[in-house]
């Protein structure tokens, strides 16, 4: 974990998933991390621009990486699986192919944009606080032990695979979320679908197929007795949270399991102000019982 | 009553199996069959191709193109065939890299064969090769290209000019896929995962094939006017072999039993660079790109046996040199070292990526940094089913092409890159000739009689239901070690005689093989046992022929007869099947332009 990052929240955290942004800023402050704003960045492309116009995707990625570089930041901090994979994938291509990088830089120069020299890394908040000094730092601020809270970790896809781009941990048996859940004093729940796909990339274009995927982690987490699901990706969060009702109808079951952003779980253990979590922005409400287990102030004193 | 009925949409001979320990079978044919199973009719094709590797698929595509009803029978899905493991390349005198001619290609092949190859066939082979390459490319084969967009050609062992067309070091993979694509394009019928147990001869004519349906069990009689054998080689006779598990000489055994002699079986090529752990092939292309062979002292020992060609001498020469280094104590842990470290990572990653992956996976070394330990392994059977240069055998209606066949193109030793070309040239020719014969003659009248099917069923049932005796795997291992130890690169009378005695003993013991699996569905215990029987018959032919040939020629190297003896031995060995015993015979070699010369590299 470093002291200073270029902060790349991504589109969803800036818009429909604003609660992720506020929670992230709050936990960053507690961890004494400086988040340098990047006001001029665009969407990372979300894999869609990569698919539709691959060369354009490389250009906007280089521009984003170049901006971080010019601000003197070696590392971009991301809080979304999709941003992480897309920026890292572009970064790898740009770092490995000098001719490609030169051509792109020429174009960026021509339009007056920042060029990129290949010196930036992109790391997800999950990676920074789940090992090494970051893990120690988090443990030291995790003043509240969320004992009794059963948390099912949902990794999703693009923070794990392909491992030759991401490479932080074993994609078949990751443990970073489990370590953090334990550091929060809570109990991690294991279930097979924790590394499978939530379906978000096709939830609009192929809703039925996506729901067939989405029901699996929801079903399994609920059956295993989890109180909440935690995820490091705002797109997975949107699927699991906002599409939960549709998934329930598809499966003919009730789920009713609230979904937490990683920063919210960490924040709860760190005793952060509830207002930062913006739980009201969740479609699947947190019940008073869950709030009590999260030990958020508004729940304290409430009948469990 | 019909617990399990084995039938095909086109089956006239229906095998109804009643599930009792004695496994009796009921055969229904003709009008009775049609009454009981109205949707069923005769399985009959004009041409059956047995085997779906390069030769088989090329033959089938050719026959289909010429408008005959052809079907392929294969014990594996086509793309699983061993042709796909070929690495280095396919030869043709295109003249893309340097000046070249098919005469030069022919001469190199003749010399490489140690003058045992039939020169009329070799001339046809070399002459037709270039057009076959262009046709493969038009079909879509993905070859490595030179800067001008033409097909690249690399140097290979014992070739006078660089004429090996290649795709990095996965040429076989690329070719097997392009032919499979053409098989789909031409909508060729494939009986997939069918294991042929007999080639039926009816009154002297080939009548078709009896095959066991591995997926659901049961024997099928599949009649045909012509059967083209394209079943590949028999490397699994040996412990150290580059060959897949499936290379068990089934087609050679089928032809032998059907009355076709096997030819030149003593000539089994050992590839110089195979891995010790599992025999996997490291392509000659590594040496073609400049790799060296070193002994434990770091010396390039090839300078002794082949001062001009060095590592790119003919395979038999290199294998002997290596075997000697190892046996004389100058090896490293039973191997010599294939050194690619001076080639640089760029060349290795672009031209030899497959070899690098194999070395990492199966020898635990990265050839960019470390030499690869290698030793000779059984690789290619120059011998095989006796046939002419159209693939026709002496049993009318029975043909052969590819490694299973012995035309002979390769004589006593094969050049690298010639085997892939052989499959295409002679697969095409056999497909063409069989198709033309169909168009000329039509129905040959040969049939598979119910009694023949019944006998075969009894034989297979006998093996299937047996639970006494030894396991097939144990006998297979014993055979393989005996062959590697006593019929390997260097042979003596004594060792071969011992080997022959063991092979005969194993053939005896293989009459009672203990199977664990007596079921019908996907019974690979059964197919393993059948493969063992093929291996043993081929081994018997090989050892008997080797014992008899008292000279050294090509891959057959006798320590007690070290010279080549053209006066007595410039002839092909034939092995007839006399009721399961090997009977030797001989036939002259066809010489056209090139009288035998001393052979050195």
């Amino acid at each position, binding site marked *: 974990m470093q002291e200073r990052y270029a902060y790349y929240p991504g589109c969803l955290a800036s818009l429909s998933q604003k609660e992720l942004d506020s929670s992230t800023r709050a936990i960053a402050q507690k961890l004494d991390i400086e988040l340098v704003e990047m006001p001029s960045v665009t969407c990372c492309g979300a894999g*869609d621009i990569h698919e539709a116009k691959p060369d354009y995707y490389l250009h906007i990625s280089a521009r984003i990486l170049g901006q971080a570089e010019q601000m003197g930041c070696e590392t971009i901090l991301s809080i979304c699986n999709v941003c992480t994979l897309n920026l890292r994938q572009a970064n790898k291509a740009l770092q490995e192919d000098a001719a490609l990088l030169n051509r792109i830089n020429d174009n960026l120069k021509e339009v007056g944009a920042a060029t990129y020299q290949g010196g930036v890394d992109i790391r997800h908040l999950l990676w920074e606080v789940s090992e090494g000094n970051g893990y120690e730092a988090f443990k030291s601020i995790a003043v509240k032990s969320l004992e009794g809270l059963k948390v099912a970790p949902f990794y999703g896809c693009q923070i794990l695979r392909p491992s030759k781009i991401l490479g932080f941990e074993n994609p078949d048996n990751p443990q970073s979320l489990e370590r953090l859940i334990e550091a929060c004093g809570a109990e991690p729940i294991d279930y097979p679908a924790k590394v499978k796909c939530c379906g978000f990339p096709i939830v609009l274009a192929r809703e039925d197929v996506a729901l067939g995927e989405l029901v699996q982690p929801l079903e399994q987490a609920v059956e295993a007795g989890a109180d909440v699901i935690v995820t490091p990706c705002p797109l997975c969060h949107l699927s699991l949270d906002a599409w939960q009702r549709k998934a329930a109808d598809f499966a003919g079951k009730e789920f009713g399991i609230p979904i937490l952003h990683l920063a919210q779980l960490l924040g709860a253990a760190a005793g952060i102000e509830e207002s930062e979590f913006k739980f009201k922005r969740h479609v699947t409400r947190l019940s008073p019982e869950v709030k009590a287990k999260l030990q958020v102030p508004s729940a304290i004193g409430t009948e469990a | 009553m019909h617990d399990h009925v084995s039938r095909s949409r086109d089956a006239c001979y229906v095998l109804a199996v009643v599930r009792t320990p004695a496994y009796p079978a009921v055969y229904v044919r003709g009008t009775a069959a049609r009454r009981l199973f109205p949707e069923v009719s005769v399985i009959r094709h004009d041409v059956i191709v047995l085997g779906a590797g390069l030769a088989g698929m090329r033959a089938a595509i050719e026959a289909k193109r010429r408008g005959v009803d052809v079907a392929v029978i294969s014990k594996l899905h086509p793309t699983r*065939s061993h042709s796909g493991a070929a690495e280095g390349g396919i030869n043709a005198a295109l003249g893309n890299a340097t000046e070249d001619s098919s005469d030069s290609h022919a001469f190199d092949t003749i010399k490489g064969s140690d003058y045992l190859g039939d020169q009329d066939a070799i001339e046809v082979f070399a002459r037709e090769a270039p057009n076959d390459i262009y046709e493969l490319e038009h079909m879509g084969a993905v070859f490595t290209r030179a800067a001008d967009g033409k097909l690249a050609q690399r140097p290979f062992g014992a070739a006078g000019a660089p004429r090996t067309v290649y795709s990095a070091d996965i040429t076989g993979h690329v070719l097997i896929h392009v032919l499979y694509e053409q098989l789909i394009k031409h909508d060729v019928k494939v009986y997939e995962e069918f294991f042929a147990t007999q080639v039926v001869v009816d009154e002297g004519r080939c009548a078709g094939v009896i095959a066991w349906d591995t997926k659901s069990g049961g024997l099928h009689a599949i009649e045909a006017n012509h059967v083209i054998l394209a079943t590949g080689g028999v490397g699994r006779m040996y412990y150290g072999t580059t060959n897949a598990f499936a290379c068990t000489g089934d087609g050679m055994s089928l032809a032998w039993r059907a009355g076709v002699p096997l030819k030149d079986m003593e000539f089994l090529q050992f590839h110089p660079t195979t891995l010790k752990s599992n025999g996997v092939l490291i392509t000659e292309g590594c040496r073609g790109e400049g790799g060296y062979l070193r002994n434990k002292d770091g010396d390039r020992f090839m300078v002794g046996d082949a001062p001009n060609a060095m590592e790119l001498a003919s395979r038999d020469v290199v294998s002997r040199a290596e075997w000697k280094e190892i046996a004389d104590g100058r090896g490293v842990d039973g191997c010599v070292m294939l050194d690619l470290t001076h080639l640089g990572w760029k060349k290795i990653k672009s031209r030899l990526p497959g070899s690098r992956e194999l070395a990492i996976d199966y020898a635990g070394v990265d050839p960019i940094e470390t030499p690869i330990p290698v030793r000779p392994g059984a690789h290619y059977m120059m011998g095989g089913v006796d046939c002419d240069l159209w693939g026709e055998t002496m049993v009318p209606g029975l043909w052969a092409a590819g490694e299973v066949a012995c035309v002979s193109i390769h004589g006593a030793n094969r050049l690298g890159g010639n085997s892939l070309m052989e499959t295409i040239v002679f697969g095409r020719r056999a497909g063409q000739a069989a198709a033309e014969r169909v168009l000329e003659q039509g129905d040959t009248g040969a049939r598979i009689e119910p009694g023949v099917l019944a006998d075969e069923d009894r034989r297979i049932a006998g093996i299937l239901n047996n639970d006494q005796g030894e396991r097939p795997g144990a006998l297979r291992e014993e055979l393989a070690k005996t062959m590697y130890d006593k019929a390997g690169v260097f042979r003596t009378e004594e060792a071969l005689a011992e080997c022959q005695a063991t092979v005969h003993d194993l053939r005896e013991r293989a009459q009672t093989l203990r199977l664990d699996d007596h079921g019908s569905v996907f019974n*690979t215990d059964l197919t393993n046992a059948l493969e063992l029987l093929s291996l043993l018959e081929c081994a018997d032919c090989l050892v008997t022929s080797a014992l008899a040939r008292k000279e050294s020629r090509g891959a057959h190297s006798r320590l007690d007869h070290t010279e080549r003896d053209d006066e007595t031995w410039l002839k092909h060995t034939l092995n007839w099947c006399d009721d399961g015993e090997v009977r030797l015979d001989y036939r002259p070699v066809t010489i056209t332009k090139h009288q035998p010369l001393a052979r050195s590299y």
Partner: protein
Amino acid sequence: MTEIKNAHLTTLKGAYDTELMEATLRIRRWDPDTQRARFDTFTVTVPVTASVLDALDAIKDTHDGTLAYRKSCRMAVCGSCGMRIDGGAALACKTPMKKFVDAGHTITVSPMGNLPVIKDLVVDMAPFWEKIRAVKPYLDTKDEEVPDTEWRVAPEHGDMIHKESLCILCGCCVSECNSMESDPDFLGPAALAKAYRFVGDTRDTDTRERLRDLNGAHGIWDCTRCYFCNQRCPKGVDPRDAIAKLGAESFKEGFVRDEGARHAKVFVDSTFKGGYLRETELVPKTIGPVNAVKDIPFALQLARAGKVPNPLSPHKAKDNDEVKRLWKLLEKEAKGAERPRAQHPDAVREG
């Protein structure tokens, strides 16, 4: 009998010497007769260099000959031995046993997913082959005159389909495909990678028809981007990347009617206009206004939670004119670009 010179050369001493180890495997069996599954655990002695396939062979030879699995080359080129090892598909011949033995771990071996099981580790590959056939997996040069020698293909053009041409049709990608698990009719990563192998082949001239077929239901836009295929492929084919390339080719050829393509277009348009994704446009532009209206109750649910951003003030990045200029520049560049084509040798000779 006279002493033969060099008689010691017949046999290589120590040819079979190898260190051995004990390996334990837990295997999911499927009995086609009783239609029941069970787990059997075996311990076998194998060489330290043994692969999972070698261990299966040892089991079959010495413990239980009824164990059924496919194999052939044992060197990761034929594609026969795909199976799930600890829940993820891999080639048994390419998976060394030693690392499991050293870790004291008993692996669980089961058949590949997304395909019917015939017996034990043998799956019915027929649905797999059907999907390969469905993408017209052979070169089509259509009415082009067949040259008398080879088509001229520039090495860098040949490289475009290098990864896709490595595919050995093993099925490991299909086994783990999350989209196919939810929709068995999805063409899937293997068929789509094979499709790109032809779309990207500069000799093939059937590009538009191929893309038209792939842009339909169960095609390119059904991929859920779980990247399991890239992760599991033993040959580095990267099928997901091939699917993305098919998407790019579809855009180049103007096939943008599928909802998936429209979805992608919103990202392109948003980013180059305003910098951030215009989330409110995403739904109607992807699924169309009629379907969007049908989904209003759902939208209201999201709106109640504040998840529908103000459509009238899209979030713009600072210095956005830069991005608009970049767009114009790239559009101009793209207009000039021609689809790479193989050259007819006659054209080269004349030219």
